């Protein structure tokens, strides 16, 4: 690919803490557009650079931060990705 996203950092946390995130500090747009785990109990946000946003650092269920290559490995696991291909309509 043209470049990697090595400057991005990612924090996984419980969906129950989404309201504690200041979405002006992270790249995700809102709590309504974040990606969730298959069981919808976990989510993550990402930011640029080494400094963890204050609202993310304050989360009590946080796991990370993870680098880009680490989060790709995590997201490819069964907790985040369906084992069977998904169809494009419901």
């Amino acid at each position, binding site marked *: *690919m*043209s*470049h990697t*996203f090595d*400057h*991005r950092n*990612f924090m996984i946390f419980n969906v129950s803490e989404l309201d504690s995130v200041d979405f*002006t*500090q*992270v*790249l*995700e*747009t809102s709590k309504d*557009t*974040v*990606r969730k785990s298959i069981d919808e109990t976990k989510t*993550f946000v*990402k*930011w*640029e650079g080494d400094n963890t946003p204050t609202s993310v650092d304050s989360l009590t269920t946080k796991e990370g931060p993870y680098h*880009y290559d680490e*989060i*790709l490995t995590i*997201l*490819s696991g069964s907790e985040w*990705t369906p084992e069977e*291909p*998904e*169809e*494009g*309509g*419901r």
Partner: protein
Amino acid sequence: MSGTVGPRPESIFNRFSFDFDGTDDYVAISANSNLQISDTFTISHWVKFTSTSQMYVSNFANKYGTYVQNGYAYLVFRNLSNTQIGLQSTSTINDGNWHNITAIKTTSTMAIYIDGILDANNTNGATGITSTSSNAIGALFNGAIRFLGNIDEVVVWNNDQSANASAIGSTIPTDLSTYSPLSWWRMGDKATYSNPGGVGNWTLTDQGSGGNDGTSNGMDESNRVLDTP
């Protein structure tokens, strides 16, 4: 004007693509009745990727779109029984180079052109079911099954563009306004970032007639790259 003609004058016209990180990057497009197409449509886009995972390139009204998996390109839609009907390309394109996918569905046929050449077709086309769901580039309508790689020049027509498929996909992207697209997202080109130097999002202005502007999610200025077909 005399002198040397540049090798790719069109590169001025198409400077950027979007590089999707495969975690939660995608472009959301609000629901609009003009994208709820039941009969005939054409989708075209350029992609560059290496993954074998299932990754959506485009999804409209959650009833039709394109994805890649194991390197193959797929065209899918849902018929009036809400059953998904698909067509798989015969070629794989996950070689890390740019490829054009032009996918066409009519009420009787389906076809996939790769780089302007007919690659696969069948007679499974039919009238499709519609919905009022939103639309997405680089993911399903709800942001799932995200794309990892580059996407450029995403176009939708509400008609059959098979007569122009070769011209659309066999060379570098051209000025598609010639073919009067319903919606045309230039990706990095004709896009504006809300907060230069900070956290923001991209607005992709529809260059077709449909008025279907897109808004990025999970993306910042680093997603726009000088990498084009």
